């Protein structure tokens, strides 16, 4: 009965059973050779046609490479192999296309930021300096960022943690479903909307002035859902056997949570909180609406305008002269360093505190 099927197959279709296991292949050096050839041809075209942008050269080279590979493979190895190679080259092109701008971003920030970055920059404020003047520093912004982010963490971490405990340990029914849904929605709130909310509530309705605290409230709104999400994940990883073992000993549920569940997952929870801190440390928009910015040191987050690192970058960028740009790049370097430090620390903790068997 199999022959009946075989006979009906169109001539051009490849049968399921190849006549031989051997398959004509392009030589191993072919991809490299085609890549070099394409690059050379692209450069030649670029020079001859007088194309200014290097991006165009790259584009031509990539197109040539993909097209040539596909054509050659189709001829030698067949359509399926050609598609496979096409996918491979596209994936590589994607990778290169993404690496170039991201590497450039990091490189520009480090290179341009390093020109001005030194101890003086970290320990002095902009007090008494005009935008057009050289010098100055980010001390006042650093203080502001640390205080605002600290306050935000003080609000958001406990609230987020308790909410996560509620969702994982107690939550049932409609309320838990609603909370889960709105945590998701809250994750997507644009930072400027959070800023507008605190603006209309704290500054317009209650008539308080601009302050670091007002900014911290907006940052807390942004931070809370991130903390809930990551804590939830961590609590779900705690095996139920641990809870049951504790409950079976007659330990009440709330003590089980405090003494068994939370300590087991504390490493992961800390990591999540720190990653959330890193996220909000770079927020600019709420600061712009609520903290107002300042050029001198204000150590009191509850009274009067403050500055913050990301806001400092924005004001210096807007000032629009070379000295201000230098300060903006240097501040960007400080901000990235701060965020990266938090990230690395958080990941370090995650690795160090990772639940081990028999721990």
């Amino acid at each position, binding site marked *: 009965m199999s022959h009946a099927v075989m006979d009906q197959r169109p001539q051009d279709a490849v049968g399921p059973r190849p006549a031989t296991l051997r398959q004509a292949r392009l030589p191993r050096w072919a991809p490299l050779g085609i890549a070099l050839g394409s690059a050379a041809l692209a450069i030649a075209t670029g020079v001859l046609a007088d*194309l*200014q*942008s290097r991006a*165009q050269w790259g584009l031509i080279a990539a197109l040539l490479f993909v097209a040539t590979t596909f054509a050659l493979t189709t001829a030698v190895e067949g359509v*399926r192999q050609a598609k*496979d190679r*096409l996918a*491979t080259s596209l*994936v590589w092109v*994607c*990778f290169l*296309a*993404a690496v170039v701008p991201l590497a*450039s*971003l990091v490189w*520009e*920030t480090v290179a341009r930021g390093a020109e001005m970055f030194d101890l003086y920059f970290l320990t002095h404020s902009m007090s008494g300096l005009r935008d057009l003047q050289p010098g100055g520093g980010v001390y006042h912004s650093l203080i502001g960022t640390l205080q605002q982010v600290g306050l935000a963490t003080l609000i958001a971490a406990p609230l*987020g943690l*308790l909410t996560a*405990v*509620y*969702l994982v340990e*107690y939550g049932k029914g409609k*309320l838990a*479903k609603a*909370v889960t849904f709105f*945590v998701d*929605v809250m994750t*997507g*709130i*644009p930072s*400027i*909307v959070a800023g*507008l*909310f605190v*603006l*209309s509530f704290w500054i*317009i*309705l209650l008539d308080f002035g601009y302050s670091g605290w007002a900014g911290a409230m907006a940052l807390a709104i942004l931070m*809370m859902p991130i903390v*809930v999400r990551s804590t939830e994940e961590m609590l779900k990883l705690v095996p*139920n056997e641990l809870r*049951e073992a504790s*409950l079976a*000993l*007659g*330990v*009440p549920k*709330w003590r089980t949570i405090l003494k068994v569940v939370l300590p087991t997952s504390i490493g992961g929870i800390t990591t999540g909180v720190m990653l959330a801190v890193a996220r909000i440390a*770079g*927020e*600019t*928009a709420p600061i*712009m609406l609520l903290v107002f910015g300042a050029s001198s040191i204000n150590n009191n987050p509850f009274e009067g305008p403050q500055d913050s690192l990301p806001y400092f*970058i*924005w004001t210096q*960028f807007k000032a629009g002269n070379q000295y201000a740009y230098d300060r903006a*790049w240097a501040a*960007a370097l400080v901000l990235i360093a701060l*965020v990266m430090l938090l990230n690395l620390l958080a990941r370090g903790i995650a690795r160090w505190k990772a639940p081990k068997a028999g721990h």
Partner: protein
Amino acid sequence: MDMTKTVAPPPQAELPPEAPKGSSGTKGSATHRGDRIFSGLTKGSGITLLVIMAAIAAFLTWRSINALSVNEGNFFTTFDWNANADPPVFGIAVLAFGTVVSSVIAMALAVPVAVGIALFISHYAPRKLASPLAYVIDLLAAVPSIVYGLWGALFLVPHLSGLYFWLDDYFGWTGVFAYDGGAARSLFTVGIVLAIMILPIVTNVSREVFLQVPRMHEEAALALGATRWEVIRMSVLPFGRSGVISASMLGLGRALGETMAVATVLSPSFLINPSLLNPGGGTFAQNIAAGFNEAGDIGRDALIASGLVLFVITLVVNGGARMIIARRKEYSGANA
């Protein structure tokens, strides 16, 4: 929430041999009081979160009504923003256009590339390269948006003119890609910067999903004689589809609401410019940042009204993403 809660109800006080310290004869009621207080506390936090969400909607609406009641223009169709004038005339048409267009450009550029990189890391890159690469991209997701904006405005913008002239030469006739040679502080540039900004996050989420594809599904395809690409098409992409959608929605949410990267790069105007390469246009978030300092009371409320629209849009996008994912889950066999 698909977790199975098999936590047994707290056993009654029957004085187990290893009673925890601090427990006494009145343990029963103390246990209940402790449990009630603690669970009340956690429940209260959850409710606080809901209250905050409700308050955001309520307060934004309250200020918006204040502004809209005096608006002489049509809030949705007016191509102008004179909220501080008397009488105030303002509308969000230009902002809505700019927000949607820049986000669409960002998605169109970022999602395919992000899926490509995610596949590169999960299935193509040599293993020694893959994990450090994933780590670096993870870190890049944490770079603040103001830094992307600074880089975009001071580094990328000057480098784009060449590309834009070239696009103008070949596609200028469409009008969309017409370019008159000014600084490239346009919606298209905004789209590029937003794309680069959301690339790491979309990549990360997609990569994680691709790595979760069960080995047995990939081996099923391999054993049928599938090439690497066919394995990806038959096993990896179907399995990862809902993950890629949710990653894209996450990226879209960020792009829609992004303030600083747009405010630094764009040279705004209250016109809908048919050419995406020439400066002009605006987005909700950018307009709030740009107009806030000069705004009077009504001006501020008008900006809050535009913020409310942005809030609703992101709400719809996020809610939609959740629904897509929930529905896909039934078919994807992710739990099978």
